């Protein structure tokens, strides 16, 4: 089962066969306070790469969506958005991945990088960078990952899981309950009614 860091490899599958020039990708993965991830992938290509990518995916975004979904069978993905910049031969793809991280039995949030001894660079308190070149693409693909953990994440540390792969572990409090219309309407009525009552009492 692949984890999120390999999610976008699918969208460049054909390059490894046809084009030798190295393709650079930037993948930002922002995890929210309930463990879902928002991914944003940007890539700029040379003319030949752009032509091949367009013929396979750029002109048929549904094929891109389908192939990414097939290559990430362990996830539920949605909200795919593709923006192309033909003038500069680049694209932006964003999507949501549900349940990208979860809470283990010890109550810790866990994010798997799917990399053994990942060389992580800490950019900020909850922001990390990881550069990867998947061996299956023979060095033709370089991916730069920016992994942003939730703002509320505490005690962030990296560890190795049972398979020797690097994982993030952190604590996070449950998010505050959402807006409750009935409760706030009740409080509003109490305040208004109480104010009105107080005013009348003072007048008396």
């Amino acid at each position, binding site marked *: 089962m692949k984890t999120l860091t390999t999610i976008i490899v699918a969208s460049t599958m054909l390059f490894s066969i046809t084009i030798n020039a190295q393709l650079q990708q930037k993948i930002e993965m922002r995890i929210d306070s309930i463990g879902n991830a928002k991914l944003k992938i940007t890539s700029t290509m040379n003319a030949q790469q752009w032509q091949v990518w367009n013929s396979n995916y750029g002109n048929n975004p549904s094929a891109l969506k389908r192939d990414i979904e097939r290559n990430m069978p362990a996830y539920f993905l949605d909200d795919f958005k593709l923006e192309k910049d033909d003038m500069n031969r680049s694209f932006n793809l964003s999507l949501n991945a549900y349940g990208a991280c979860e809470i283990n039995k010890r109550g810790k949030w866990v994010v798997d990088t799917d990399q053994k001894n990942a060389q992580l660079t800490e950019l900020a308190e909850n922001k990390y960078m990881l550069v990867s070149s998947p061996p299956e693409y023979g060095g033709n693909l370089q991916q730069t990952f920016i992994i942003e953990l939730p703002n509320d994440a505490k005690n962030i540390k990296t560890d190795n899981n049972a398979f020797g792969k690097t994982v993030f572990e952190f604590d996070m409090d449950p998010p505050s309950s959402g807006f409750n219309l009935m409760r706030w309407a*009740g409080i*509003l009525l*109490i305040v208004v009614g109480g104010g009105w009552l107080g005013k009348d009492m003072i007048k008396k």
Partner: protein
Amino acid sequence: MKKLAIPLALCTLGLILTALSFFGSKAGSADDIDITIDKTSFIMPAAHRVYSNPDALDGKYYLFKAKITNNSSETLEDVTVKYRIPNYIDWTELTVSGEMFPGQTLVVPCYPKFNNDITEKTTESVEKTEIEISWDGAEEDDIIEEDFTFKLTNRNEYVYTGIKSEEISSYADIYDNDALIACFVTPNDPVVKYYAQNLQEKVLKGEAAGISRNEKDAVRFLMGIYEATRLSHMVYSSTKGVPKSTDDVASLVQQVRLPREVITGNTGLCIELSTLYASVLSTAGIDPIIFFVPGHAYPGFRMNGQYYAIEATGINGEGLGGIASAEDAFKTGQKQLQEFMKFAQMGDPRYTFVDIHGVNALGVTSMDLKDNDFMRKKVDDIVASWSGGGPQIVPNNNNGGNNIITPDRPLRTGNALSFSIPAGWQTMMRPAPQMPILTAQVVAPDQMTTVSIYDIPTNNMQQAMNTLNQYFMSFGMEMQYQSNGNSLAGQTYSANGNFNWIGKALRRQGGIRIVAVGSPDYMYNQNSGIINQVYNSIR
């Protein structure tokens, strides 16, 4: 007092709403848990090890995946997801999430671990998966139960695709399960290993292609497999391939006989012959490749970066026309390979190949098969047809199978070759005066198996066979044969039908003696047991 009524009413209403907001949302009830299940339509027993491995082909082959969202306002503790498949898998825990926050989503994929005996399943069935989701403090009514059905095929069925019909857009989508053909390649099957060992010993008389990594050695091995199938009179034959569908998926489902069934049945379709070759090559440490082209498949291997192929179906069978020699089958395979490379380089998606060891490394491993004494005996029978010096067939006294009768008396017609005549067979000396080279003939009680002894006054084996053929032609018959040392195998064609035979030849004083035993082609497989027994008794 009247003036106070309205603000009092507002306050009261406010209190009621506030109170209701606390009581109205029951924490973690089943209604607050949202579940989406994405399920597979077919499960192939042959690929049971793939389904059980989350890392196999990046986890592509799952039974289901569930998306569970906590829509309640409370955190759920120890959320547990378990499932079962009645009669196959007991309740099994998939995951326990320590906590599940309000709004949080849990994605749970299921990779089912079937018992190894699923590979003995010979019929298709519709099975049910039951899923249960619970958490700490959940009441009986709150435990969530879901179920769905799927088709569990028989062990021989190969489903070409698992992609939903509405999503199929290309040729590759129709054959999306190509990699799973590696599950039908069974180098670890004890019966296949036994066959391969015999082949290395009896046909190839030793080989070291897997160690030397010499392409010539490997080509010799490839042709050796072909020769073994040809000598045993293996024939090409079709099997059932029918379209099947579920609610979402429509696919062609092909019955694929396992390599052990191809060996012992002595027949196979192109894909079945390809899996047989791949199994034997893999056993010998050579990297097997199966090439797929529109409507056809053929086997080969890769060594030192080079690809080689053979047309395994060149064996055809008498009913289908000419039987190609190993050299011709290899030439045809190489020619097809050139064409394959041309189209593949042009990006034609119909030309693909499966690198068996490559997909093995990705988790697509073969099914587990148990040893089988009966099949080993069948392999012995087949091995006996390859050459002289084959293993002695242990007399089989059981009443099933080929009903082999223990030999009881030797026929000695001179000082050269002799053999044992099974009980009840009739011996005729000089049965055809117009064919003086036919010294004797021994016929089975059902007249379907015949042993012929020829004495031909020549010292050259080739001339002897030519003389024999001339006699046959004068009777409106024609003979084709192959020789390997003093062993012979051939077919005789006539207006009455075709006759398959195996035999041995030996120089004797004043000429060459040939002893041949065989049956009409339509009875050959059925009588192969007794034919091999007689053949092995030739001394």
